[in-house]
C-alpha cells in the first residue's frame, strides 16, 4: 500500500485549503442558524401570500382560496403593481409565498387526478408555515376524494376536518424550521464537499500523474493496475472521510433533525453527491498537472455551480433562465433533493420516489465524468508513448 500511504502524505501538504473550505462551511452555518433563531415567531405574523386562481368556477378551488385567507394575508394583483411580476415580488419580499391554482383544478381533482399547484416561496419560516397549511388541505381533500365522496359532501367534510384539527396541526410533529436549517446546511455542504474533494483529489492525483513520476513507476516492477487501484482507493477513502466529517458536523449543528427519517435522507443524498464530487475530482485531476491552473478551475467549478444551483441563496430567488442552465449541473439535482426533503411531511414510498430519481441523475453525472476521464487518460497515455 505504498502508493496509498504516499497519497495521504502528499495530501497533508494541502490540508490547509481543505480546512479553509470546512471553516467557511461552519461559519456560514453558524451565522445562518443564529439569525434565524431571532425570527422564529412565525405564528405571530401571518404570511403574505399571492393567490392566482385560474379555476374560478371550481368549488374546491374556491374553498382552497378561503382556506388560505384564514391563514394568511392574501395579496391581489393590485398589491404587486410596483413590481415587474411575481418573481420580483418574492425577491423584494413583498410576499412570502405565491400560489397558482391551475384551470379545471376542482374538476380534475374530483376525477382522481392531482393537478400541480404551482407554488414559489422565499424559503423563510412564514413560507414554510404556508406550505404546511397547503399540504394539510390537499391531503385532507385527497383523503375524502379517495373515499368516493362527491363534491358537496367533500367540501363540507374538508371544512369540518380542517377546523377541528387546527390546534393539533400547529404543533405538527415535523420540525419545519429544523428541516429548513438542515437543508441549508446540506446545500452549503455542496460547496465545501465539491471544493474539498475536487481540490484534494485533483492536486494529489496530479502529483502522481506527472510524466516524470509515472515514468519512474513504469520502469519499476510495480503492476500498473495495482498502482492505479491504490490511487482510486485513496481518493475514495478521502472523499468518504470528508463526507463523514460533514455529516458529523450536521449532527452537531442541527441535531434534532438528523435523528429523524428526513435526516437520514439528507445523509443518503449527500453520500450520493460525494460520489459525484469524487468523479469530478478525477476528471479535473486528469485535465492538467499545473497546480496554479487547478486552483482556478476549482473555484469556477465549485463556486459557479454552487451559485447557479442555489447552494448559497434559496432556489426560489434565482431567475428561471439560470435554473434552466443549472439542470446540466449535478449540484442542481442534489440541492433540489435537499429542498424536497425539507418539505417532507411524512417519509413514505411515494414521497421518496422523486428523490430517488434525482439521486439517479446525480449518479448518472458521476458515471459520465468517470467515462470522460477514462477517455482523456487513454489519450494522454498514447501521446506519451
Amino acid at each position, binding site marked *: 500500500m*505504498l502508493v496509498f500511504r*504516499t497519497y495521504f*502524505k*502528499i495530501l497533508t*501538504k*494541502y490540508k490547509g485549503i481543505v480546512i479553509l473550505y470546512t471553516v467557511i462551511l461552519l461559519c456560514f452555518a453558524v451565522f445562518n442558524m443564529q439569525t434565524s433563531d431571532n425570527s422564529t415567531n412565525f405564528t405571530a405574523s401571518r404570511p403574505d401570500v399571492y393567490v392566482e386562481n385560474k379555476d374560478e368556477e371550481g368549488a374546491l378551488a374556491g374553498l382552497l382560496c378561503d382556506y388560505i385567507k384564514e391563514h394568511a394575508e392574501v395579496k391581489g394583483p393590485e398589491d404587486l403593481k410596483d413590481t415587474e411580476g411575481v418573481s420580483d415580488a418574492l425577491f423584494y419580499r413583498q410576499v412570502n409565498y405565491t400560489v397558482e391554482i391551475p384551470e379545471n383544478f376542482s374538476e380534475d381533482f374530483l376525477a382522481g387526478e392531482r393537478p400541480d399547484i404551482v407554488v414559489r416561496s422565499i424559503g423563510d419560516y412564514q413560507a414554510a408555515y404556508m406550505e404546511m397549511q397547503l399540504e394539510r388541505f390537499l391531503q385532507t381533500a385527497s383523503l375524502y376524494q379517495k373515499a368516493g365522496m362527491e363534491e358537496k359532501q367533500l367540501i363540507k367534510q374538508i371544512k369540518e376536518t380542517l377546523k377541528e384539527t387546527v390546534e393539533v396541526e400547529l404543533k405538527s410533529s415535523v420540525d419545519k424550521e429544523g428541516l429548513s436549517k438542515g437543508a441549508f446546511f446540506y446545500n452549503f455542504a455542496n460547496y465545501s464537499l465539491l471544493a474539498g474533494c475536487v481540490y484534494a483529489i485533483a492536486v494529489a492525483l496530479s*502529483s502522481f500523474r*506527472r510524466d*516524470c*513520476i509515472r*515514468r*519512474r*513507476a*513504469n*520502469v*519499476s*516492477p*510495480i*503492476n500498473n493496475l495495482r498502482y492505479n487501484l491504490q490511487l482510486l482507493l485513496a481518493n475514495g477513502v478521502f472523499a468518504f472521510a470528508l463526507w463523514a466529517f460533514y455529516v458529523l458536523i450536521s449532527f452537531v449543528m442541527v441535531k434534532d433533525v438528523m435523528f429523524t427519517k428526513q435526516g437520514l435522507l439528507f445523509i443518503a443524498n449527500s453520500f450520493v453527491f460525494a460520489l459525484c464530487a469524487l468523479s469530478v475530482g478525477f476528471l479535473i485531476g486528469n485535465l492538467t498537472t499545473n497546480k496554479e491552473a487547478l486552483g482556478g478551475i476549482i473555484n469556477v467549478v465549485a463556486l459557479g455551480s454552487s451559485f447557479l444551483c442555489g447552494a448559497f441563496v434559496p432556489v426560489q430567488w434565482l431567475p428561471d433562465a439560470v435554473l434552466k442552465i443549472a439542470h446540466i449541473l449535478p449540484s442542481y439535482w442534489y440541492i433540489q433533493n435537499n429542498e424536497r426533503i425539507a418539505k417532507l411531511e411524512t417519509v413514505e414510498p411515494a414521497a421518496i420516489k422523486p428523490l430517488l430519481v434525482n439521486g439517479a441523475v446525480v449518479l448518472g453525472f458521476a458515471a459520465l465524468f468517470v467515462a470522460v476521464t477514462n477517455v482523456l487518460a487513454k489519450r494522454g497515455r498514447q501521446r506519451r*508513448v
Partner: protein
Amino acid sequence: MKNVIEVRNLTKAYKELRAVDDLSFEVHEGEILGLLGPNGSGKSTTINCLLSLLQFESGHIRIFGKEMTPDAYDLKAQIGVVFQDVAVFEELTVYDNIDYFCGLYIGDKNTRKAYVRDAIALTGLEEFVKFYPKQLSGGLLRRLNIACGIAHKPKLIFLDEPTVAVDPQSRNNILDGIRILREQGATIVYTTHYMEEVEILCDRIIILDKGRVIASGTNEELKELTDIEEKVTVEVDRISQEQLAQIKALEHVKEVTNSKNVVSIVYREGEDHFGKLLAFLGKEKIRYHKIYSERPTLNDVFLELTGKELRD
C-alpha cells in the same frame, strides 16, 4: 565476458526523424559503458527504448539474456534508472522521496530502511534528509534524483546525463558514487555529452551521432582512430615564417599553425617531440612564455569522424 544488454538493429523514428538508426551494441557485466554524443544524438531515446518506455520500429533488446517487454517485471526489478529530468515529489522530503521510489522495488520495511540510508550516504545527502526538493540547489537535487533511482541496489543502472548543470563539488560526488556502485558489482550505462567525464569514468565508450554508432572502444582504442599523437602549443614573443617552415620540417610534424604568436604543432607519431622542439627553440633563440603538450581528446576523435565539434 557476459553480456548484460544486447541491442540489435534498434531503430526508432519520430515521424520523419530517425532518432535511433539501426543501433547495435552490447554492455558487459560489471563495466561502465559511456554513451557519448552531442545533444539530440539519440542517447535518451535509446535508453527509453531499452526500458520499454517507447515503442520502436524494429530491433531486438535482450537484458540479462531475456527479451525486454513492458511487463517484464522480473527484469525491471533488477534495473535502476536515473532519468535526465529530475523526477521527485515536490510534496515529500528528501528521505520520503527516496523511501517511496525504493519502495516501488523493496517491500520489506527494514531492508528498505537500510537501503535508503545507504543511498543517502552514497550521495552525501545526510544533512538534507528533512529538506523539500524546493529547498535544494541544482546539484543536490541531481544527487537526490540519483539516490531515488539507485536506492534499491539494482544490478543494472542507467544514468542519463546525471551531471548536467551541476556544480563541481556535486559532480565529483556523483562520479565517485558511480565508481562505488560499480565496485559493488553493478553494471552501468552512462550517457553524457561531456567527453572529459567518459574519459575518466568509463571502461568502454560508444560515440553516437544522429542515432548511429560512429565509433566504440576503450578510451585508448578510440584515440588510435585519429592519426594525431600529440599536440604541443607554444606562446612565443615573435616568430618568422622561415622558422615556422623549419618546425614544419621537423620529424613527425603533421601541421603547424600560428595565430597571434600562439603556435600549435600537431605530431602524427613518434616520441620526445617536446625535447626536440625545446632544443630547436633554444638554437633559434626564440623566446616563449608558455609551452604545453596535449594528448588527443575525444573531441579530436569526433572531429575527425564527423567533421564537427562534439561541444555545442
